[in-house]
Every structure is written in C-alpha cells, then in structure tokens.
C-alpha cells in the first residue's frame, strides 16, 4: 500500500501532475461507462430500452451490496430486504390517495393522505432501509464474518414474512399497483451515477480503509486499534441506503410492488452479478451488473426463440437461471476474483 505524505502546497502541484485525476480515474471510467449505457438506452427501441433501464437499476443494487461486501469481506444475503423496504416505503408515500383507498383501505390516516414528491420519497425509502440496517447491524455485525453472513439471511426471511403478512399496510401477498412511474433510462442513469459516486467516495475514506484492513487480517487490525464492528456497521448502513434506493427505483420503474419480487431469485441475481464481476472492487461490481444484464437478455431472447428458416428454435423456459448458476460456479472455480480480478480500472498512461 502506498503511503503518501502531502502538504497543501504539495497537493497543488500534485494536481498539476494529474495525481488527483489519477486517483479519480476509476470513478471517471465507470461514470463514462454508465453514461454510455444511458445513452444507449435512450437510443434503443422501447423493449430494449426497458431492459437496459432495469439493468441500470440492478447496477445500483449491486454497487450497494458491494459497499458492504467488498470492503468488509462479509457476505450478505439480506440486502434484497433493504430493497424491499425502500420500495414499499416509497410506494406508500407516493401512491395517490385514490389508489391507496382501493388497495389499502385499512391504512392509518396520516399515511393514507400522504402524496409525496418522488425525490423526497426515494430519499426517505433509502433512509428507512439505512435505519433498519443500523438497528439489526448492532447484534449481527458483532458476529464473526461467516456467522454474520448466515445471519443476514434471517433479515431477508423476516422482511419477507413481515411484508407478506402485514396486510393492512403492505397489502400482504397482493401487489400494490398505481405507483407513479417516473423511472426511465435517464433517471436510472442518474441513480447509477450517484451510487457509483457514493461507493467510490466511501471506499476512498479512512473508515473503508480500516475496514479493508480488518477484512485482510482481523487480529492484526484489532491489534492496531481498528474498531472493526463500528466500521462494519457504517458500511452496512451506507450499503443499505443504496440498496433501498435501488428498490425505490425498481418499484417506480415497474409501477407495481409485490413481495415475491424481493426474495430469493433477486437475491441470487444480485449476488451472482457481484461475484461474477468480482466482489473486491467497484469496477468488478459494475462489470458484473453490465455483463450479467447483457447475458440474461441474450438468454431471454433464446427462450423466446430465434427464427431459423421459418421454424422457431427456442430454449426451454427457465434455462437462463440454470446457466447463470453454472456460470457463477465456473467463475468461482476458475477465476475466483471475478472478471475484474479484484482491481479497479488502472491508469493507462506512463508517468
């Protein structure tokens, strides 16, 4: 690890030498990539545009998961629960009074009359997810890494059970419909840019550095005075916020929320994206989301079928999931650090 000693005068010259640019280089590359994808979505025909938009929303979720998993080294199966929380909170705050009257007649009056602006509701959705993460983080983050990973599974199950049965507020097993649909390609792009920016800012921070030190060697970090639990909780809260926001985006992209959406299949998809991309770098998180989104779209086309000289050849439905799981296993065996190999985009020029 490089240790840089800088004075304020030194950093001015450093800027001239392009050191700041060099440090921000991974962020810039990823931002340009996300913008290019947004532009592609803007130009694409309607169906493809929707798929790309959805891919960008998943990218937010994967980056959110990365903030915790990548820096702490603890796996989480619970982040889709934070997506669900964000989605439901925003749905309840933004649905029209009339729609709530139809789907949720038993709602408390103050919630029933709420019709918030989308941005405020999105923020509150993320914030509620973050608060939940803070509360459950206290007992769970004290566990050793592997136990903590398993315990996050409980977050997913509890959230699923509570949302699926709390009929008066969430509609239970029924879908909530009539959410304002405000997420298009550019909103998703803005969300993805913000997520990448926040994740990058966090991983450059002191707290994230200490957390990564504890990831590499818990005992040595503790001996150097690193309070691992505190930094873990911090990363958990930030990543829950991002996951919550991705849930908000997904809800207002689809226009409906359903508890089944936020369960095991989505959990697997998001984790597969992160693992295949490489969970030790932001570049890996983004790469995984992009590559797997593209691949699932191709497989979906294969399931619909191709026209070959008048006959339709189609892969059996559900093949996409099997291929995804197989791909993930192959990556773990043959390239355990994922596509990005645990590194960020590197500076291409010689200094």
């Amino acid at each position: 690890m490089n240790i840089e000693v800088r004075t304020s005068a030194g950093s001015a010259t450093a800027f001239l030498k392009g050191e700041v640019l060099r440090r921000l280089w991974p962020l810039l590359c990823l931002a340009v990539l996300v913008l290019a994808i947004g532009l592609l979505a803007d130009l694409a025909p309607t169906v493809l545009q929707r798929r790309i938009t959805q891919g960008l929303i998943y990218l937010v979720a994967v980056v959110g998961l990365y903030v915790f998993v990548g820096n702490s080294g603890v796996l989480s199966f619970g982040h889709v629960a934070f997506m669900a929380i964000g989605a439901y909170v925003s749905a309840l705050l933004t649905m029209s009074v009339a729609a709530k009257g139809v789907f949720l007649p038993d709602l408390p009056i103050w919630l029933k009359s709420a019709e918030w602006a989308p941005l405020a509701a999105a923020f509150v959705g993320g914030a509620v997810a973050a608060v939940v993460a803070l509360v459950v983080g206290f007992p769970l983050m004290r566990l050793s890494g592997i136990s903590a990973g398993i315990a996050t599974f409980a977050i997913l199950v509890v959230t699923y059970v509570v949302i699926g049965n709390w009929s008066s507020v969430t509609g239970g097993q029924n879908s909530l419909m009539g959410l304002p649909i405000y997420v298009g390609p550019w909103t998703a792009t803005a969300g993805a840019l913000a997520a990448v920016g926040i994740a990058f800012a966090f991983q450059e921070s002191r707290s994230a550095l200490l957390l990564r030190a504890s990831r590499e060697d818990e005992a040595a970090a503790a001996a150097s005075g690193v309070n691992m639990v505190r930094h873990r909780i911090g990363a958990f809260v930030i990543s829950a916020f991002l996951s919550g926001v991705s849930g908000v985006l997904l809800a207002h992209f689809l226009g409906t929320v359903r508890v089944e959406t936020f369960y095991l299949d989505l959990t697997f998809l998001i984790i597969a994206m992160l693992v295949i991309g490489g969970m030790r770098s932001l570049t890996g998180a983004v790469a995984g989301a992009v590559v797997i989104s593209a691949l699932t779209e191709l497989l979906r086309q294969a399931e619909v079928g191709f026209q070959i000289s008048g006959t339709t050849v189609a892969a059996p439905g559900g093949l996409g999931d099997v291929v995804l799981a197989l791909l993930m296993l192959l990556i773990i065996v043959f390239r355990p650090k994922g596509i990005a190999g645990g590194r960020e985009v590197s500076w291409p020029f010689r200094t």
Partner: protein
Amino acid sequence: MDRIIQTLVDAISVGGLYALTALGIGLIFGVMRLINFAHGELIMIAGYAILLMFGLPLWLVVAGALAAALVLALAIERAAFRPIREADPPTLLISSFAVSFFLQKTMILFVGSRPKGVDFLAVLARQVEIAGARLQLLQIVTIVVSAVLLVGLTWFLKATRLGLEMRAAAENFSMAQVLGVRANRVIATAFAISAVLAAVVACLFVAQTGLVQPRMGLQLVVIAFVGTVIGGLGSLPGAALGGFLVGAATILLQALLPPDLRVFREAFVFVAVALVLLFRPQGIIPAHGLKERI
C-alpha cells in the same frame, strides 16, 4: 393439560427435525468450514425419490431416498467443492449458494415448480392416545427417529476410528492431516452422513406435509442455519441444540401468540435469535479451535 402435552410433543418433534437438519449442516462445516446451502437440495432430491418410487415396499422407498441423497451429496462434493477446498469460507459459502440455486433451477426446468402431492407413510397419520392426550403417531415416530439418530451419531463420533478422525479434522484440519488423517475420506464421510440425515428428514417431512416441490428444502435449511449460528458455529452439540431450540420455538410461538400475530412467528423467532446473539455472539456452545491461532 392435553393441549399442553400436545403442543410440547409437537414442539419436540419439529425441533428434532430441525436438529437433524442443523447437524447435517454442522458436520460439513466442521470438517471443511463450508456452510452447505445445498443441504436443502439433498432433502429435495430425497423427496422426489420418494415421489418417484411411491407404491413400492416401504424399505425400498426409504432406500431409494437414501441412495438419491447419497449420490447427489458425493457428486456435489466431488464436482463443486473439492476443486475449491482451499478457498476462504466466504467463497465456499457463495459456491454452495450457487450449487443450491443450480440444483433447484435444474429441477424446476425438468419437473416444474408446482408442488406434487404424495401420500407417504399414511399409516402414521393415525392418532394415538397417550396419558390422556391424543397425539399423532408420526410425531412420536419423528421424536424416536431423531433421538436414535442423535445417539447413533454421537456413538459414531466417539467410538469409531472414522469418527475420531472427523473430530480431529474439525478441531484442526491441517494438524489432523499431518497425523495421517485422509482429507478426502473424512470429507466424503461427512457428506455421506449429512446425506443420510437429509434423507431421513425428507422422509419425515414429506410424511408430515404430503408435498414435494423444488423449494421444499429451503425452509428447513434457513431455520437450521440460524440454529447452527446461535448454537455456536462449528460445534456439533451446539448445532443440534440450536436447531432444536429454533424449531421448537416456532411451534411454541404458534401456540402462544395471539392469532393475528401468528403469521409473524418467524419474525419473532429471528428477533429472539438476534437477542441471543447480542449477549452470546459466539453461540450457546462455542466451538473450540474455530478461531485461528496467531
């Protein structure tokens, strides 16, 4: 009074089922630090074997379930887990998650995701009267089978050479290897035993619910996971006790909670689990040798 006995027997039988599942997971964790998500799929494949062979003599059906779980367990150990045996625990955890998802989705691809009914062990649905309480025969069988398996496994681990090797491997794998314990044999044995446990759980669970579906293992495994964590990850008595407590707690809560809160019973169980962990993060019966020496 009858109701109390009924509820208690119910809690013990469900607790026993979860204890067996948690033990299957705990055994594998002990020897290779792998949390086996795919344990649920061993239960699932045994369930489908029961469905497929239903109608044949009982011993054949049970043997078929055992064989299916054994073959699958040894196959995933060989194909998926052996190549990455040296990897760190999080990587192992992810790969077992992927194996589980792969098996589940492959099954859905071939047989569809709809549950199929099977009237397995219908004889045991009978009620019997013991000490004034009417109990289902199946529950008593479940309790007896769980107890026998627990005792048998304890005997195996304490009194046989292979059991001793497994305990040594769980304590310190590389040291055990240096002293002549064969890694492949110990790990294959652990998978075989966990397959037997999975097949037995499948028989009892299918008899109880009368349904077989690709996701049937999941519910059992999630609760068993949490059981192994609160029991103390890496400790076998801990896994059995934790699985038992969590399973029994679900049933007791079902009986004790007011009706409109019953649907949230899993949430209550997990809150209780979080509270236990707040005070004993290392689990109820902490494992020795889990923390690396420095």
